[in-house]
């Protein structure tokens, strides 16, 4: 079997990383770009590259990775101008000059590390992103309630969001309105609106997102849709939700 064998390696490229650095808790720190030179290796991802920079060049460089497999959403950053997951970005798909910046719209912790967790928890509390069920304590001994298999699949499709924050970072409205819930929030409302286990009505959802910080704040620039690492159908969901909420508003 040779079908997967990669081509023999040419002379490795010299990569030049331009990394935005800042420690907002240090009064002397000024946001600036620092340059790191690194030799490219086969199969190198930004996860590998940033760890090499930290091990060999600057032990103080702050960034976040957890799963390093594109599953957990920790490593969202702006890569050559575009929000994306660093762990699954191969350097071979980028030019030799690579610019890295923290996701905008979130509180900066340091360098490439931002506080998406705080933002997401706030959004979840506001939008109550859990199934509001009639029965708080279901009888766990009994056979579970049935659900249409296709509906379960459709809910999972929207449930795949990993709260990485790329959609918020790519959103025009989120940059202007601090309290905008973002595509991540609207997608969650769409997800629970679809779920028959959630007893909330359109009126309830209207209370949550029927305003300019919700679905009417979206300017349809659709940056969210373009950058979503999980390819969620954000455009369709927002349009759908907006029609539904507009119907509510018009009574």
């Amino acid at each position, binding site marked *: 079997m040779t079908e997967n064998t990669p081509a023999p390696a040419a002379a490795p490229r010299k990569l030049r990383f331009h990394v935005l650095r800042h420690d907002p808790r240090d009064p002397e720190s000024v946001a600036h770009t620092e340059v790191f030179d690194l030799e490219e290796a086969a199969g190198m991802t930004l996860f590998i590259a940033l760890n090499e920079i930290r091990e060999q060049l600057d032990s103080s460089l702050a960034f976040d990775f957890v799963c390093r497999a*594109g599953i*957990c959403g920790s490593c969202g950053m702006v890569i050559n101008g575009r929000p994306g997951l660093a762990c699954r970005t191969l350097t071979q798909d980028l030019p030799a000059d690579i610019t890295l910046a923290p996701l905008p719209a979130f509180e900066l912790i340091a360098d490439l590390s931002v506080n998406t967790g705080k933002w997401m928890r706030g959004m979840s509390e506001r939008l109550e992103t859990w199934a509001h069920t009639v029965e708080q304590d279901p009888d766990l001994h009994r056979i579970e309630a049935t659900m249409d298999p296709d509906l379960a699949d459709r809910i*999972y499709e929207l449930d795949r969001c990993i709260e990485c924050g790329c959609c918020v970072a790519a959103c025009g409205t989120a940059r202007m309105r601090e309290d905008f819930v973002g595509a991540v929030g609207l997608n969650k409302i769409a997800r629970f609106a679809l779920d028959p286990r959630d007893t909330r009505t359109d009126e309830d959802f209207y209370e949550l997102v029927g305003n300019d910080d919700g679905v009417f704040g979206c300017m349809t620039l659709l940056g969210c849709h373009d950058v979503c690492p999980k390819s969620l159908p954000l455009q369709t969901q927002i349009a759908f939700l907006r029609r539904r909420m507009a119907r509510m508003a018009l009574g």
Partner: protein
Amino acid sequence: MKIIYTDVLVIGGGLAGLRVAIGARRRGHDAIVLSLVPPKRSHSAAAQGGMQASLANVVKGQGDNEDVHFEDTVKGSDWGADQQVVRMFVNTAPKAVRELAAWGVPWSRVRQGDREVIINGQKVTITERAEAHGLVAQRDFGGTKKWRTCYVSDGTGHAMLFAVGDQAIAQGVPVHERKEALALIHDGSRCYGAVVRDLITGELTAYVAKATAIATGGAGRVYRVTTNAVICEGIGAALALETGVAALGNMEAVQFHPTGIFPAGILVTEGCRGDGGLLRDGAGHRFMPDYEPEKKELASRDVVSRRMEEHIRKGHAAKSRFGEHLWLDIKLLGRRHIEHNLREVKEICHYFLGVDPAEQWIPVRPAQHYTMGGVRTKHTGESPTLRGLFAAGEAACWDMHGFNRLGGNSVAETVVAGMIVGEFIADFCESPAGDLDIPTALIREAVAAERARLDVLLHGGGAERADALKIEMQQIMTDKVGIFRTGADLEEAVTRLQGLLVRSRSIGLRHHADGPNPELVTAYRTQKMLKVALCIANGALTRTESRGAHFREDFPRRDDATWLKRTLATWADPSATLPSLSYEPLEISAMELPPGWRGYGAKDYLEHPDTPRRVEELQRLRERLQGADRHRVQAEIMPYEHLLPERFRGLNERIDERLP
């Protein structure tokens, strides 16, 4: 000095920790969860294939029940598990799936009628029952007699973690993110909480609690090649170990997953093989039936990983510029199945390998995956030696996995243990044992000790580099304490790790800030990880037999006569370079399933003299109870239900086992 008081302090924001906190909260106790990262980023999210629970909804799961799940799990453990705990687990797992279904997990559901599946490389048509339509579906997994693994496509852990994480928000459980416990506060017999460092500001805070629960997951990152997330460094186990009082159980029991993608080590789910995927060698030959005619690709993970490495040693590997590997073939499942049920696998192959698994084979090789060992606890989750300290999930050893865990039993364990231990913690908080009577000097001294340790690292001028020590440790573990182990390798590993531990006491930093300082974090974690690595290596060196995932080439047989016992490691003297090991026997006379052949893997083992006696005793008992229903028989053989919290007792309903 900042002190935060609460009823329950949960260290770790993955599935086990969150479910423990929800359980305590629902009983009216305040709980705070500490998490290194936002909780939905925990490694629980990486569980892909599913969770085992004997719902028996799909036709290939018909006839499944707690008894079959129990037997599969005990055999999987190579008889290392605590059988009463396994019983508690298998009886609660269906309830856990049903609770999660009610909380909104979009479990994949059964569709009635014909469907085409791949079994043993062949296309087969199976027909799902009309009465199962819309119920939670199950898929096949390794080491199981029935299709038992409930799943959400191949994003099961993600869907579970988000549902449980959102439920924690709904219940108002505060999660203190980016906080790291550095040490437990204790007086040698009672645990009172932890000294905690803020990873953003560097500030130390004492969290004082009636009950403290460790739910920090596994220790995979002590190895160089692992499927584990970068935060799975065994720090929770180290926290318990450093008390000198709490013990770690069976740390030498380390699982290697057969299908880490090569060379990155990222996991692709066992569901690939469960759904019909095959393992092939460099020549394209499907080799597993040659070694394991009964279960083939779906023997337990320890067995499949060993057979793969054995086959590579015989010279049958595929070769790439990164080294030798084998192939996982899921092409035969077809594009529709892959894009529907194995979509994370497809993404991982696309982004990390540039491979389309519907068209090409996936390069794989076994990689460290799971820590069967952990903080030794009773069936309640509480340490038998340090009152008020609890543990749950992968960080714990209560001990349901013994020497090998079955696929689908870990993500199941997280929620099941969370449910059970959460109740016992609430009981503890309501009992006199939970009363808190702590001298403030103890808190002050614990914080001062941690402050001093950090100051030595930051300003002590030590010459050793933390990341260099860590990388060397990881390399030793992967090279010398891996799938095949020998006395000589293990001795070398222990000696070299001891050397690293001594050197780690002179770590110095290049960067001296106390705020977000990744080098400081690596420094104090490396010191802890080395102790955990030494527990693994030394436990493996001392255990002169092969059991489950612990395989000694110089002692290839399972030796029940000498080694049917659990390793306990403690570390009482901080200046020591080795843990103290002791052993606790597993009593055959109380076992529901006495030791025997697993149904796959090696057939020869050294029998314990008690085994034939127990087998005969059980035979007589079964004859006497002929005609009685299975629950009655089970209760006579090995009663366990009294051990469960009351709300989780009772039978589980199935299509073929209706409750009145």
